[in-house]
């Protein structure tokens, strides 16, 4: 594919329901990030996958949030028992393996806008 693909682009769910957000990174990209962005705010780091290493989950806000990356490619972010404060745009980004020169740029998807009613 040409870029990072995220689905769905919009998701409206009722409080208490579970949601799954999907990210298809650029082929061959070994690094994958999930961020959350509320309206007019910065990027809140959630989780980072790099190759076969254990993911950096330090940004997940609660145990209702989890993410996995199957086969080093597609990633799914799951939010259980959604709350209204979970409403935000969830952005996924991928990059090639970091190099000796310091790393490759992140390519972001268009995001999933999650609204919890």
């Amino acid at each position, binding site marked *: 594919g040409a870029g990072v693909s995220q689905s769905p682009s919009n998701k409206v769910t009722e409080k208490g329901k579970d949601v799954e957000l999907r990210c298809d990174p650029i082929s061959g990209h070994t*690094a994958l*990030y999930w*961020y959350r962005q509320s309206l*007019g705010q*910065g*990027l809140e*780091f959630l989780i*980072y996958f*790099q190759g076969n290493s254990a993911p*950096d989950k330090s940004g997940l806000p609660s145990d209702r949030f989890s993410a996995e990356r199957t086969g080093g490619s597609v990633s799914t972010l799951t939010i259980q028992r959604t709350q209204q404060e979970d409403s935000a745009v969830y*952005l996924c*980004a991928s990059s090639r393996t*970091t190099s*000796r*020169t*310091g*790393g490759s*740029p*992140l*390519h*972001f*998807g*268009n*995001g999933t806008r999650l609204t919890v009613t």
Partner: protein
Amino acid sequence: GQQVMQIPQYQHVQEGEDFTTYCNSSTTLSNIQWYKQRPGGHPVFLIQLVKSGEVKKQKRLTFQFGEAKKNSSLHITATQTTDVGTYFCAGRYGRGSTLGRLYFGRGTQLTVWP
């Protein structure tokens, strides 16, 4: 610790004025990247700085990496309405196999009045 601070959070300028945003880390960075996010869009990579004291230019944009590799700046000369958006810096720590994830600053939202 590993944290990138960015100021100012907001900047409002009249078209034609200059604009600068600053990023700072208490510990040495291995490299720093800059991104621009247009309203309603997603962040788009602008540039990466790796060397101490490095300066790079893209038309009216000038990017600098400090000598100690702890700070960086983005300067826009003679802003235009097309420069509107949020500018993020993102730093990385470590070297080689310990090179870790990117740490994003909070971003600077630039508004340009015509």
